[in-house]
């Protein structure tokens, strides 16, 4: 686990009139939710770094990408991945 998983940097703050036990319960829910989602997100980004870089590079050239252009980048990425597997 890295710092973001164990620290409060990805922790939501619960406010409201809930009781202490409810706050504790909600905090646990939020912590678990964020931990799971954080891990999944980082995993996706690491495993698809090529796609990430391709979109970022394209954004540097064209400040706005529409849905079709993003889909094209993804299609090219999938094509490359399949070619490598073959």
């Amino acid at each position, binding site marked *: 686990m890295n710092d973001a998983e164990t620290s*409060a940097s990805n*922790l939501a703050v619960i406010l409201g009139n809930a009781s202490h036990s409810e706050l504790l319960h909600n905090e646990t829910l939020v912590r678990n939710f964020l931990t799971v*989602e954080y891990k*999944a997100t980082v995993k996706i980004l690491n495993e698809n770094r090529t*796609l*990430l870089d391709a979109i970022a*590079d394209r954004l540097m050239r064209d*400040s706005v990408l529409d*849905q079709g252009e993003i889909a094209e980048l993804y299609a090219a990425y999938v094509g490359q991945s399949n070619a490598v597997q073959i």
Partner: protein
Amino acid sequence: MNPLGESLIDQDIDQDIDQEKRPSKGATPYCKIPDFFVCCYKLILNWLRNRVLADVTVAAFSIAPTTPASPGVARMKFVPTTNCASVSVVAAAASAQHRCRTLPWLGDEIDNERLRHLAALNMARLVKRESRKATFIDLVGMVTAGFGDSDEAARDNEVLLHHTAVHEAGHAAVAIVDSSGKNTPEYSTIVARKDVKVWWSNPCLTALPGATCSPTWTLGTRFASLWLGVLPRKSLWALIGYPAGRKPILKIASN
């Protein structure tokens, strides 16, 4: 906060869609796009000149091929307002299956297909988010907010620009990979803007003196963890909402 602009993950929560499916749409608020507001302004001026041509069909579009267009969204209208505006715009649900079908009235003023798409998308989101019909005042509000928010100077910082590009690319990559290509973000942009508070609020309300804003994001996706990783804790609060008959939705709002 990154002055080049955090992206808006607008889930457009649809009661017909199971939250577990998490319709992912990485997007950036409209006021990041100065050109878009210039076009809107021209659109308004054109409308003022030609307002005798009432009830002109303007545009038909879908909000996204990957998102089922509900009749309530697809049948958006520009309805008469208190200033006697008489423009009526109808997007028929039947033709909402085709992406970005923008008709000449918009096309005359917005010659860029992307911007037409964004204009249509933004209005559709407004209608859906606030469960009301879009009005001419909304367009005025967009113009007002847009001109006040763009931050051209921020583009000079290439390092920050690249940082933002990677950040926004992350939203897009996660959305599209997580859904195996089924939920492609409608658009992604790194166009600069200054203040995140304005775009967050209702563009219609911010244009009206004394209006109050109720900034609330509704996130149902794993993007939440990325957001919480970059936003100051003191500016966040979160609630676990339990809509009737549905699983919890994480709601996050900025102070």
